[in-house]
């Protein structure tokens, strides 16, 4: 069973736009767009850290859509991944 915790990168700022969100990474000074209306809700959940499965259930998105969004946000370092305390990851 996979237990992962998603944490909003504190170096990222986001703001809502009609297409989803505009994000800025203060470390890389990179500005980019995320075309998903779920991104702000997910970012809010992850502000203090949230279990990946809890976030998925809370957002009510399709598993594929949720995974796609999370992977995209991890790739852009909007979200950071950490193991939940006491949890483990399947390799």
């Amino acid at each position: 069973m996979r237990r992962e915790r998603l944490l909003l990168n504190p170096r990222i700022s986001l703001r809502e736009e009609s297409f989803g969100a505009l994000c800025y990474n203060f470390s890389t000074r990179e500005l980019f767009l995320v075309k998903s209306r779920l991104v702000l809700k997910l970012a809010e959940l992850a502000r203090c850290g949230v279990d990946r499965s809890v976030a998925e259930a809370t957002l009510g998105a399709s598993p594929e859509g949720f995974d796609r969004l999370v992977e995209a946000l991890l790739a852009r370092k909007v979200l950071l991944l950490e193991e939940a305390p006491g949890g483990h990851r399947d390799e």
Partner: protein
Amino acid sequence: MNDSLAAALRAGLTAPICLTWELTYGCNLSCRHCLSDSGSRAPGELNTNEALELIDTFAEMGIFYVNIGGGEPMMRRDFFSLLEHAVSRRVGVKFSTNGTFLDATAARRLAGMDYVDVQVSIDGPDRATSDALRGRGSFAKAVAALENLATAGFADPKISVVATRHNVSRLDELEEMARGFGASLRVTRLRPSGRGAQSYANLRPTPEDNRHLFRWLSERPHVLTGDSFFHLSPLGDPLPGLNMCGAGRVVCLVDPVGDVYACPFTIHPDFKAGNIRETGLAEIWRSSGLFTSLRSEPGPTGCSSCSAYASCQGGCMAAKFHTGSGPADPDPECVMGRAGATASTVVSIRPRRAAAATR
């Protein structure tokens, strides 16, 4: 960029992606191509409290960072106070400087600040080339500033170059120079605005220069351009960036007295959307008549029948305006050779006088 995203950007965002704030028109230099015709301070500049409040507004609007320019912004005595306030509100600052006041102490102070980026202006890889545009002694001061930043450990400053016919063939040297200072190179377009109106004919890159410039930039996606060169896009694949005119859609400018303009290169009453002392910036951005009209779909233009229109979108509104062309006309540096039919003699726009006349 896909069509729906492009349409969303054209329709305007909740706040600018990139807001340019001309902090002062005071400047110790008198560069031949200065787009804001800077020299002496404008009467009625925003005072420190007004400037701090404006930074609060940037934060409340969700503006991630502002490009601070001038004039020479470091001439303001409250410069570091404003920077520190911006950082405390998580508003990033990219500021442009000629380097004169960037001594070792200032460099150390900047190196200790988060969310701050510095662009030092140099217009050639040697003293003769750069000083010919920026004035005697300016190259040495800029180099000293870059040395101070390097010594202080400031990460990745920028060397900002305005592309002219005198330096386009020397971009390799400029890139090497930037590398030597641990800096990135930034190349932007010469606009016929401010004093650039008078010098445009003598400084503007030739068509061959533009072809070379575009090839050179295409091979170096790491070189920053500030999205300056989308008018050259028909020459190949678009350069990194939004590749569209962002005036009033994704960019705007606040000048030293709080006037808000559609873009940094059209500081003229025709492109003034309001003043922050009379109407808040958020309200101006959201609902000024000028910005609303800039966000509407353009009607048929003289360019729209051109096969390259999808690439260049008709080019830069400011370059057209300052050369006497209309918004529907081709860019004065149209690579399809269409500019000659409409561009007239360069008109002289003096932004500080224009601003004073409206107040």
